[in-house]
């Protein structure tokens, strides 16, 4: 495996290898020296065309804990804002000897283009592209579910997951559906009809418009952020209506089975898709998701960059 572009690229064995590797990486954070020499002398470029503080620093920390050199390349204030194309940016990074490019782009498919256009020789990791995919988020979500619901071992057979919110624009939902299906979990998407993509019936999951009917039957519920710009785009009448129909508040949380966890990829809008009571409750695992994100990204970087380059590709 040279690139990580889509959660669909991962078969069950590869996905489990990443999760198992992440579990060993997680043990490192208990040590006084939180650093491994594994990627010494390798260069990882964080190429972020879209603002994303948490994903970028998560990748940065993961690369640094493996002793790689990290360069952060943000589109704002760079050559990209002066009109440079993705190709020329890529050729520049290649000339500087990047071993891996972690890319976040507003256009769906940009990482795929970067990986397959022969512009660069290194690995490409998709850190979120348009409304398409965000595979490392799906991996850290699966890792978090496995820790809480399956004792940190094996796959997610029979785990029931509800994903609630703006499915239409969510790369997190798409990657999660693909990966959770690979790992044997059962996914139900919950959203108003206006926030579901065309062709949703072909996705390997259930769809519901009724959050109250779904909550009692899931082991994990994942709330998606409603982006500010969507609130004025006629996907739903008002923010208050969305919140009362699809937001997770304390009363709704009590519909969940006792063991169920509440997840959110962040950043949260308290009072919108999730109430403060839920966000601060014992069931909420958001802070843990952040910590797990570093471990999962260390695992991905190690598995893509740690060994010999696959010459056969």
């Amino acid at each position, binding site marked *: 495996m040279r690139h990580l572009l889509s959660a669909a690229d991962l078969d069950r064995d590869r996905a489990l290898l990443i999760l198992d590797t992440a579990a*060993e990486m997680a043990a490192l954070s208990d040590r006084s020296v939180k650093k491994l020499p594994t990627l010494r002398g390798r260069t990882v470029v964080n190429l972020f065309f879209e603002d994303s503080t948490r994903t970028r620093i998560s990748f940065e920390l993961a690369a640094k804990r493996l002793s790689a050199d990290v360069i952060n390349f943000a589109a704002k204030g760079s050559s990209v804002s002066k009109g440079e194309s993705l190709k020329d940016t890529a050729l520049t990074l290649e000339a500087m000897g990047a071993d891996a490019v972690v890319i976040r782009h507003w256009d769906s498919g940009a990482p795929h283009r970067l990986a397959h256009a022969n512009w660069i020789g290194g690995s490409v990791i998709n850190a979120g592209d348009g409304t398409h995919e965000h595979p490392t988020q799906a991996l850290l979500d699966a890792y978090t579910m496995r820790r809480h619901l399956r004792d940190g071992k094996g796959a997610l057979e029979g785990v029931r997951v509800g994903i609630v919110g703006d499915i239409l624009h969510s790369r997190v939902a798409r990657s999660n559906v693909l990966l959770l299906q690979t790992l044997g979990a059962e996914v139900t998407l919950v959203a108003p009809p206006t926030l579901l993509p065309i062709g949703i019936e072909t996705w390997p999951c259930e769809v519901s418009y009724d959050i109250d009917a779904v909550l009692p039957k899931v082991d994990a519920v994942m709330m998606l952020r409603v982006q500010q710009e969507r609130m004025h785009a006629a996907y739903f009448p008002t923010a208050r209506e969305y919140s009362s129909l699809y937001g997770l508040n304390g009363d709704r949380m009590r519909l969940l089975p006792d063991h169920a966890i509440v997840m959110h990829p962040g950043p949260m809008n308290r009072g919108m898709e999730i109430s403060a009571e839920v966000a601060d409750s014992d069931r909420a695992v958001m802070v843990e998701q952040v910590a797990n994100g570093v471990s999962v990204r260390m695992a991905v970087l190690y598995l893509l960059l740690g060994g010999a380059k696959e010459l056969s590709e």
Partner: protein
Amino acid sequence: MGSARTHDLRTVLSGDDIARASRRIAHEIVEKAKGASDLVLLGIPTRGVTLAHRIGAVISEIEGIQVPVGSLDITLYRDDLRLRPARALEETSIPEGGIDGKIVVLVDDVLFSGRTIRAALDALNDVGRPAAVRLAVLVDRGHRELPIRPDYVGKNIPTAATEQVRVHLLEIDGSDSVEISTKGEH
């Protein structure tokens, strides 16, 4: 090497030999450490961990106290990572109480080039600062490439560099034995 034409497999240690060697190593460890109070045994996966647990059980039996036994995966510290595809990690578990100020005994099945132990010493450096680090191996087969030597050896077995030493342990392989085979026979 004329006899190596057919499937050449010789057993160099039997199950009883392995049991006696582990028992002797346990006694030697305790003797040198003047007791078992500061000892921590760390096995190198996979068979080193099994051996460490066996030796730990013998020490507990003779000294009457439980010796902490853990495992130390050295994959991320290897010097040949870039020569092969990335490999899966094994478990690292450092016993509660850590290794600071302790006498750490690394346990592995076969000592060959010494590169694994070099990596293990680097890994230990990131875990803590032991008072001393010692090395116990079931088989020392020679051909060292680094200035590393074992403190406790089950058996010295001179080998040709092309031969393979295979350690089988009951817990993993179903029976105890050490065999030498000529490379390319399988």
